[in-house]
């Protein structure tokens, strides 16, 4: 039994971690009443997807995909494409966070608060 759990964690453990992280992010976005916290949870969710892609590109005994001396076979290098994709995704998430913060400043200007219950006037927690 322990063997099964150990092999599962060794093979799929990193993916489980990313999905737990993603679940935490979405849960936080839904449950927290403060808009700043919502943005933080959004970032946690985005980071979890970046981890997912990076874990895909990884393999055992692989090295950096840079040719230093002589070219080795494809087995010797890790897959660089997920890393390149995630650089783009990081830029996108940076842009999203920037726009979110700008909107938050505007909301603070209009409503004087960034708490959900102050803005909507509804107290639905507890």
């Amino acid at each position, binding site marked *: 039994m322990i063997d099964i759990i150990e092999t599962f964690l060794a093979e799929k453990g990193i993916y489980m971690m990313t999905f737990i992280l993603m679940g935490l992010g979405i849960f936080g976005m839904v449950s927290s009443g403060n808009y700043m916290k919502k943005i933080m949870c*959004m970032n946690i*969710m985005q980071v979890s997807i970046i981890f997912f892609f990076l874990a*895909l590109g990884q393999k055992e005994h692989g090295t950096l995909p840079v040719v230093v001396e002589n070219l080795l076979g494809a087995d010797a290098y890790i897959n660089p494409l997920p890393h390149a994709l995630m650089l783009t995704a990081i830029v996108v998430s940076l*842009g*999203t966070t920037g726009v979110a913060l700008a909107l938050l400043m*505007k909301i603070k200007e209009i409503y004087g608060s960034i708490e959900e219950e102050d803005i909507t006037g509804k107290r639905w927690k507890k």
Partner: protein
Amino acid sequence: MNLFFISHIPVLIVVIPLCAAVLCPLLSRLSPSLGKRTVIVFLFVVFVLSLIQLAGIVQSGEAVHYYLGGWEPPYGVEFVIDGVNGIIIVLVSFIGAMTALFSSPFEEADKNAPFKSAGYYSILCFLVIGLLGIASTGDAFNLYVFMEIVALSGYGLIAIGEEKGPIAAFRYLLTGTIGASMYLLGIGFLYSATGTLNMADLAVRLQRVDNLPLIAIAMACLIVGFGIKMALFPLHGWQPAAHSYAHPAADPMIAGVMIKIPAYAMFRFFFCIFDSSLPMMKTIFNIIGIMAVLGILYGSLKALRYDKYNKILAYSSIGQVGYIALGFAIGNFYGIAGAVFHILSHAFMKTGLFYTSAAFKYRYGIHYTDRLGQVYRKMPVTCGALVVLALSMIGLPPFAGFFGKWYLALGAIQNGQYLYVAVLIISSLLSAIYFFRIFEKMFMGEKTVSEPAAPEEYYGYGKLTGKTEVPLQMLIPIVSAALMIIALGLGNSFIVNGILRTTIMEVL
């Protein structure tokens, strides 16, 4: 030289508005109206180019492939334009150019802020770029980037709208980011199974993948991702506020086109990439069908509840997006053709209706339908267009809205799914109710429409200038939307059989 130019049209369609978006703030420093005019002219150039491209595709009957930077797929990014997305590119560039033209009176009302208006045109241009990019691209990750360009510029245009704009934009940002992340996760699963991101290559390699749970999870992620972006029923939470409070001039583009293009992307994934013989495909289509049916009923019923013109239109959009999803759920030729035709016709209808809504706001500051009394005496052309567009929304025969529903119903009957036909009829009746309520207010309202007491509520100055109809820059888009509805309705057979048939038959 001429041939060289023609062969680069697919990328020029995306690059020309990009130039305009970057140039606009710079040129506005020189002269306030120069940047704006550049954007309008460049977008009209794009419209002409997209027409040339579509004509070429219809003539040759083959898809156009453009390799960016000369890198051949599956290693490089490619643009693939066939009948379905060729016509969608024409739609986006036409409405984009019209909306840029439509916006200019709003900006002139705000004379002392040239740089602010330059920012507006720049963001509008980025929105058009993103939509054109989603429609053109043949690469799954490239689609994600364009989707985020659309989303980010959409947040900006919603936030600069009315007072509740920033909060609506913020909510949309949170929900939209979940949608985009889900899409990214979905293509992550597909990439892990196939090692490619090119759509045509994905379709070939997925046939060799026998890990069915993985494909099912990827499909679920994609349904959630596209569902949020196109406001499909249980995932529509952001949509009514975002469509009601966006900037009135940009609202036609946001409400009319921004939710249709993810629907097109859904078509690309579920029919061109996934193999239709997969065992879970029937379940997936049934789930989409249930979402669509519930969305149609929910949107139509909810639209009855509101007096605010924009809210009625926004909730009716939830129902209309349901029609498109219903076409995908039906899944045969008539279903898909009906869905694509409905993407076209509903884009013009909803854009046109939001143009009229913005026209009422511009001249009289009207947000609620009960203030529309006798407005047809003051704004006859706008109201005439509104009647055409609303009748098309209800689905009366000579107009385009009818033919979209007709093809959907044909497809449903062919598959024996009579529930879908019943839902189509019920929702048409419900939309008749809420549009006839608007007609009643417009033509038979007792209180005659008048300028509001507070001038900051509206943009135009009808009382000061003695004019009652909106300026020409706004009339051209309104009338052209109504004319396009009639043209689409009369030319429906050419569009479905001449343009869409070859592409759809290939993927079935």
